[in-house]
């Protein structure tokens, strides 16, 4: 038996792991580095030599250490790996704050048209008028749906959109000579990106408490406002799944204090086509196209986080932006006037724009409003069917697109929110968002989205009720031992963090490193 340089095992015992596994259809899969080696390649190319004389003396000498896979090996590796993933396509994915809705395949098909996919960002603008028009149309939809004055498409994700909006706010303050405003108000329930963004720009973050209903009182905001406050970052609907009832008053108070209102629009799905954030007084809001407008999450990205801006902030928008001149659309690529600059090379996430625009046209504005209403209906249906067994911290009011429970109902059972989530896995469900927002103990934040059918919701309810009953009946082990039906049991996260192994090293090298 041979063992090659890359540790490619060819002895039967080593190799067996490739086919044995817990289930006939879910075998374990070795690492790429344990399959491929430097002799294998899945791409046929001529083996030509090149002279050294134009390489500046820098021809590579250090090893590449990159195993190759032939095409059939690669196909199998990635198909087998993928089968070890959960996905929206395969089941309900009720992650609160994540809006895991159906991702239409028409979007994917349109994004792959050569006229979109095979176009370079620096082609002469005369050769990309269709692309620019697609961007213009997307911008039009976003501005119409939000009743705002401007839109900046280029942010690459929600957090990047926050950066964009807050930079516009900073630039606006500076333009007014109010650069001294160094405080940003952020409710405790905010997503981590909100305080991180504020801090990124050098702001200090002041937390605002929620009231007993899970929302923000205008009085609390007023109390926190001062001449040093640059902005409030408020999520609406908020991360407890509630519409902020005093949002108009809050906006007025913020403006009165000379500050701006940044709205985290991650939850726009609940209100698209139903409420226009611009009518509420917001100054800037990012929209996660990868949540609200159905572009796929892709296991973590890419997304797109366009930001709509009020009249007040519009002059500070970053480059690039579009300017129409009759039949032609220009692309303004260099900062002029108040623009705070450039957030990224090129023009943003065109692939996501095409998908989102396709989705908008498919749904139509009537369909988007219906989708928002269905999302809200679904969340309230789950609430109605579960609230007797689960504990809702802010009960007695309808929710928007998601319903929040805490772990009160698990008190004394020995089962934690985490245990409960892992038991859901054994039932074929992806867990909800856990331990977020931070304002309640052991949060369980459930967002069904409009994509789930009544039948699926009923099945979800039945499973959740059965689990809740079992937990309160003392069947602790089912939860603490879970999951048992997944490809792996619970993973040791502490070990991962204490002795980080962040890349593969050949067995020998690995042994040496561990000493």
């Amino acid at each position, binding site marked *: 038996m041979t063992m090659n340089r890359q540790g490619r095992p060819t002895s039967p015992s080593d190799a067996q792991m490739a086919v044995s596994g817990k289930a006939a259809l879910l075998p374990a899969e070795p690492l790429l580095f344990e399959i491929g080696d430097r002799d294998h390649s899945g791409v046929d190319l001529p083996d030509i030599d090149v002279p050294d004389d134009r390489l500046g003396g820098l021809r590579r000498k250090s090893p590449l250490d990159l195993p190759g*896979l032939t095409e059939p090996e690669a196909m199998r590796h990635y198909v087998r790996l993928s*089968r070890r993933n959960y996905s929206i396509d395969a089941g309900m994915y009720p992650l609160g704050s994540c809006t895991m809705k159906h991702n239409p395949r028409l979007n994917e098909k349109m994004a792959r048209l050569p006229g979109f996919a095979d176009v370079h960002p620096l082609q002469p603008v005369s050769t990309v008028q269709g692309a620019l028009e697609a961007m213009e149309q997307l911008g039009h939809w976003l501005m119409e749906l939000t009743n705002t004055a401007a839109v900046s498409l280029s942010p690459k994700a929600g957090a990047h959109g926050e950066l964009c909006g807050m930079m516009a706010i900073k630039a606006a303050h500076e333009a007014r000579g109010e650069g001294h405003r160094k405080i940003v108000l952020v409710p405790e329930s905010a997503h981590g990106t909100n305080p991180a963004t504020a801090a990124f720009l050098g702001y200090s973050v002041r937390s605002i408490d929620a009231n007993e209903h899970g929302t923000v009182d205008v009085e609390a905001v007023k109390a926190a406002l001062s001449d040093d406050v640059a902005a409030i970052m408020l999520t609406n609907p908020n991360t407890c799944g509630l519409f902020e009832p005093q949002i108009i008053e809050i906006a007025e108070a913020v403006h009165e204090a000379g500050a701006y209102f940044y709205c985290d629009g991650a939850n726009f799905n609940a209100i698209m086509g139903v409420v226009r954030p611009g009518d509420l007084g917001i100054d800037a809001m990012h929209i996660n196209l990868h949540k609200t407008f159905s572009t796929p999450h892709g296991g973590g990205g890419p997304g797109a986080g366009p930001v709509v801006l009020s009249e007040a902030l519009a002059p500070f928008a970053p480059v690039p932006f579009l300017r129409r001149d009759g039949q032609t659309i220009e692309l303004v690529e260099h900062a002029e006037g108040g623009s705070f600059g450039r957030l990224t090379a090129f023009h943003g996430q065109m692939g996501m724009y095409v998908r989102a*625009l396709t989705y908008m046209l498919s749904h139509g504005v009537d369909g988007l409003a219906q989708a928002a209403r269905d999302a809200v209906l679904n969340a309230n249906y789950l609430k109605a069917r579960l609230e007797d067994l689960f504990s809702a911290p802010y009960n007695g009011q309808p929710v928007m697109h998601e319903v929040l429970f805490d772990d009160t109902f698990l008190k004394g059972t020995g089962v934690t929110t985490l245990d409960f989530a892992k038991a859901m896995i054994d039932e074929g469900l992806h867990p909800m968002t856990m331990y977020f927002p931070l304002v309640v103990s052991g949060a369980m934040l459930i967002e069904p989205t409009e994509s789930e059918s009544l039948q699926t919701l009923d099945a979800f309810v039945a499973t959740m009720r059965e689990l809740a009953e079992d937990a309160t009946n003392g069947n602790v082990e089912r939860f603490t031992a879970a999951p048992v039906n997944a490809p792996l*049991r619970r993973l040791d996260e502490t070990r991962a963090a204490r002795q*980080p192994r962040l890349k593969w090293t050949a067995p020998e090298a690995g042994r040496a490193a561990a000493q």
Partner: protein
Amino acid sequence: MRYLPHSAADRAHMLDAIGTASVDDLFAAVPKSVLGTFVPDLPDYQPEFAVEAHMRALARRNHAAGDGPFFIGAGAYRHHVPATVDHLIQRSEWLTAYTPYQPEISQGTLQMLFEFQTQVANLTGMDVANASMYDGSTATAEAVLMARRITRRNKVFVSGGLHPQYRDTVVTYLSGEEGLECLSPSPEGQGDIMDRIDTDTAAIVIQTPDFYGHIRDVSALAEAAHAKGALLIVVVTEIISLGLLEAPGALGADIVVAEGQSLGNPLTFGGPYVGLLACREKFVRQMPGRLCGETVDTEGERGFVLTLSTREQHIRREKATSNICTNSGLCALAFSIHLSLLGEKGLSRLARLNHARAIALADALAGTGKVEVLNRSFFNELTVRLPVPAAPVVEALAARGILAGVPVSRLEPGRGDVENLLVLAATELTTDADIAALVEGLNGELA
């Protein structure tokens, strides 16, 4: 409405269970003044074939790179992506999974990220890489911030060879902060930082091959920087170059950032792309972005999890190393699949082929006698000086169906010294016929 699973009967049944008469009641918290009081200027829903017709009409109004001779690079490159890559990334389990927060049912994504991190680390010659950034430009800006955190110093020098839009992104990210100095464009590949490094310097940022195509030997810079306690940040916009050129890690880089688009990802008018960020082991806790690590489950089986998240916003909030959350997962997957298919052998061949095509291009351009090639060294991209401003020539060639490259003036407007410069790239897809067409076109326009 094809995406909405409820029938009218379903909705009625659900309202019944909720105990309310209408969905409007569920919006009770919304001030009446703003609820449904508007008529948007937007169309209603349409059949799929109508939407498809609309989008196809838009797409047809763009000149696709494959439609004719094509020489544009400047940070985004047209390469052949094997059909397998695009097929695989469209599998439901890759495409429609969320960030792998539940590792037991996300081992596919997690193992792939671990493999990706290893590939990026090995390719760049660094100890560790993260699970991706938005793109090369934002990764560069994050690297600068990271270097400032590590060194607790402010001063940063940005080479004149850095892609101008990368430079502008860094400027924006650091706006209002002190210490950033961006050097003027260096189209001849001249060194511009060495003498400036001092003990207040946090980092120097240099791209290789640089924006103008020159291959930069950063090892002397690395030494100079390290001597003063500063970090060397190396930027790579054409990742395939590392199949032929020395790894930045081997030349002394402390942080390497790169645009990964060339592997696995189509041009798509500029995004989504995938930012790579790799560094030395000791800096790992100052890295931005997600990291995937190896561990075991309760039965001792190997598995992977997201780890060291105490650096991240969802745990550390305002104390996080970055605000990044969603990254470029699926583009990283495409990158990783393409690189697995290539392997060392394929990547090296691909890199050599790219260089060979660029040599053919350079020689053909020099052969016209009408333009001056500025590069003594290059990978697959180079800069020429025309006798006239470049932008109108590019525009004229586009009208002939030839996309001839990027006039530097588009990215550096208002600078007389670069007005005549044109940056052109060649890849494995550049044919002799393409080059001949370009030469003919240039001869025509410069006649």
